[in-house]
């Protein structure tokens, strides 16, 4: 049961780290890092197997009568996300140690972060849909705590409440969608669900199930018109923004689209809903981002826009587009986490994030500036950075034979 253990490790570690923080901040940081590393270590065998194309499924009965087991699954998609969650998680833990001021409780932040890490791992490693939902809601809860970390600030409390209300509503819709899906398929096991895509799409309950599931995915991934909670979640400390609101939690929605791609995609409803919402979000996010004077606000709307792109790619429904979507998930996580951290450094050093006031930092922090500029170039899609490849793979290339097509956008838009 190493998958179960790997998921549980951060949860158990959260308490220990909170205790360790009473001794020293460094101990807390090392402890949190060790917890994340341990989880990674526990996952290694299954990860190695999944590189070979194998899918590891481990199962522990919980409520067999209701079709609810503790079932974990590690396949390629889970591997990718587990790496992102734990890898970026480790970086964020290191970063947060320096970011937080001495008055702020580091232990609390680490405890919440680890809670979140465990929940997120649970989401991406779940084999059982209902269990996935359990962890899904846990990410909402732990992100509520993280956003409200500076609990004395009105903005933090409001942002946290709003995020919880929106993602919580999505979670409830998702619960409904999953139960319907389970009714259609007769099982909550992902393996069964993924294998019965045709049955699902032909079922009269397909549309309600799809709508409910998409509601869950869109709220979580801040898709239009549910996008507005994300910028307000920026009231969280920047390590949290870097982790949750760029690399991981908001990716849970697109993760879900990817996860259920074989079961749900390929219908006109899917294409219109997912593709349409994705495109709208892509454009709206990009436009608003330009006008944000707040550094993190800009990045937040940029994140919304990129999430829209990923959603749109999955919405197209072709295999190639899906590959492009997965690719952009990776790229966006990397450059956006870096950008948020850079923004955090700037905030940390300047005491403000208002771009109308912070100018000319090149003189003061050239090293950081270089790093931020490379990451920003990736965000802009400049060649030689990963963002460029992402955009390239989502562009049409009809002239080439299908076999060598590196693009996806052209293929079969109804």
């Amino acid at each position, binding site marked *: 049961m190493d998958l179960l253990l790997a998921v549980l490790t951060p949860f158990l570690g959260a308490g220990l780290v909170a205790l360790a923080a009473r001794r020293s901040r460094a101990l807390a940081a090392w402890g949190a890092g060790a917890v994340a590393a341990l989880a990674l270590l526990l996952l290694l065998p299954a990860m190695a197997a999944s590189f070979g194309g194998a899918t590891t499924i481990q199962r522990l009965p919980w409520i067999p009568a*209701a079709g609810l087991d503790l079932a974990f699954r590690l396949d390629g998609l889970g591997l990718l996300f587990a790496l992102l969650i734990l890898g970026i998680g480790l970086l964020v833990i290191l970063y947060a140690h320096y970011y937080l001021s001495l008055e702020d409780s580091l232990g609390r932040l680490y405890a919440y972060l680890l809670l979140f890490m465990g929940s997120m791992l649970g989401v991406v490693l779940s084999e059982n849909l*209902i269990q996935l939902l359990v962890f899904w809601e846990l990410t909402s809860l732990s992100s509520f705590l993280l956003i409200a970390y500076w609990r004395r600030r009105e903005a933090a409390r409001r942002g946290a409440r709003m995020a919880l209300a929106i993602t919580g509503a999505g979670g*409830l819709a998702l*619960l409904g969608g999953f139960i*319907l899906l389970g009714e259609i398929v007769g099982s909550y096991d992902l393996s069964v669900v993924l294998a019965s895509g045709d049955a699902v799409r032909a079922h009269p309950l397909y549309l309600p199930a799809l709508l409910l599931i998409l509601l869950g995915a869109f709220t979580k991934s801040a898709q239009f018109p549910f996008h507005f909670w994300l910028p307000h979640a920026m009231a969280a400390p920047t390590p949290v923004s870097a982790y949750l609101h760029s690399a991981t939690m908001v990716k849970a929605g697109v993760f879900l689209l990817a996860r259920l791609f074989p079961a749900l995609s390929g219908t006109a409803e899917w294409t219109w809903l997912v593709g349409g919402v994705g495109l709208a979000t892509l454009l709206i996010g990009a436009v608003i981002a330009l006008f944000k004077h707040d550094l993190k606000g800009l990045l937040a709307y940029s994140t919304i826009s990129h999430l829209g792109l990923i959603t749109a790619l999955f919405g197209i429904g072709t295999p190639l587009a899906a590959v492009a979507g997965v690719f952009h998930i990776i790229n966006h996580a990397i450059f956006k986490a870096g950008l948020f951290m850079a923004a955090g450094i700037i905030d940390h050093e300047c005491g403000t994030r208002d771009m109308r006031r912070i100018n000319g930092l090149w003189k003061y922090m050239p090293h950081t500036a270089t790093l931020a500029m490379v990451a920003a170039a990736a965000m802009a899609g400049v060649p030689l950075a990963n963002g460029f490849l992402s955009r390239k793979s989502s562009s049409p290339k009809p002239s080439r034979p299908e076999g060598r097509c590196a693009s996806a956008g052209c293929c079969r838009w109804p």
Partner: protein
Amino acid sequence: MNAHLAIAPILVPFLAGVLLLTLRDLPMPLRRWLALFAALAQVGIAIMLLAAVAGGEILVYRLGDWPAPWGIVLVADRLAAWMVLITTLLALFALIHASDGTDRKGRHFHVVFQMQLFGLAGAFLTGDLFNLFVFFEILLIASYGLMLHGGGAARTRAGLHYVVLNLLGSTVFLFAAGLIYASLGSLNLADIAAKAAGVAPENLGLARAGGLLLLAVFALKAALLPLHLWLPAAYAGTAAPVAALFAIMSKVGAYAILRTATLVFGDGAGSLARLFEPWLLPAALATLAAGMLGALAATSLGRLAAWLVVASVGTLLIAFALGQQGAVGTAGTAGIAAGLYYLPHGTFATALLFLLAEALRRRRPASADSLAPDADMPRHALWGGLFFVAAVAATGLPPLSGFVGKFLILKAAAEQPWVWAVILVSALAGVIALARAGTRLFFSARSADSAAPPLPVYEPHSAARELVAIGGLLLLIFALTIGAGAVVDFTRATALQLADPAAYIAAVLGLEGVKR
């Protein structure tokens, strides 16, 4: 002893109550220990009883050794044992909390507390309609005593309303019992059930009126819309451990509805079958909605918890109503099974919130448990964390048992969009309400710019008993979550047993027990 297992849950609290009354001049600590010992013994007995009936046996206890339709019988089946176990567990922790000083605020707390348990156990175990009335009266008169314990204007006012309404309820109960006796000629529930199918057409109207009046009474006890208005003031007004214990009181009404709906007015009841069906589901849905609206509107945690009790009764009765609605067989029993899983969860979770509200009242001198910012309490993080977990439980968010219960109910209600909509939307309302409450109570401090020094904070002599009680309830919720597999198996078996009352009727009316 096993021969008398079915009556033990009734007599032990009675004996404890009488002893406590006799020994009322003992020092308080000794009385507390006696009460606590009695409560522990009841938990043990309840577990034994549950173990004895878990396999499907139905224990019939013929009081006075008289044969069934004439004498009074106690019947312990899975449902009764389940209710008794939940009650005793809840009572144990409520009692521990009450030993923290609440029991000193008036006379005879422990006596009346034990008598309350006596009444509850009797109501769950009796197999006789009129005896059910008697036990209802016992648990009511005891609850009056507990509710008014400690006094105070708000408590007295709410108590007066509670008492008068319940007296009206008792009157209607007697009318109903009389109608049932007049039309079906018996008071024994199993006998009534056996006779219901063959009710003479001329008596049908009387029997139906009697059955529906029973529903009115039980709905009043359960606080079903529109008869729910007494509950918030009563529960929010009374002492915290009492309110915690009362979390099971409204479930007595739900229990009685379930018992009569399945046993007497079940599918086998001929022209009386499914008598409650047209009323139950709409009322339950409306109750859930009203409860959540009340929770949203609440301005104090105690009030919020009280409204959540209303909501939890609504949820519970939705599940039970699905049992009425669904086709015979799996769909119906799934609803009841889900409800029976949700029942202990809802009870414990709301009880937990009442205890937390009390913790706030003790530690926030300025604003008590009202949803207003105040200075940080001593051990702020601990209480905040406890509240967080309790709130997660109460709103039915994962991973605690409330989520499992909600999931099971939704699953049982598949293809009933209205039920889904109400449950999901009200769950969201619950999340919003508790998130608001939590952020106001624990996240925001009274504005820092006010230069006034913080008020002196009253830290009770020790939080140990409070924490034991709260921790105990939390543990129960965790146990319900982790052991959900076993519990769901049990509640499914219970639902199946309820769906087929033939075994119950045979056990009660069977000839094997007749001696003379």
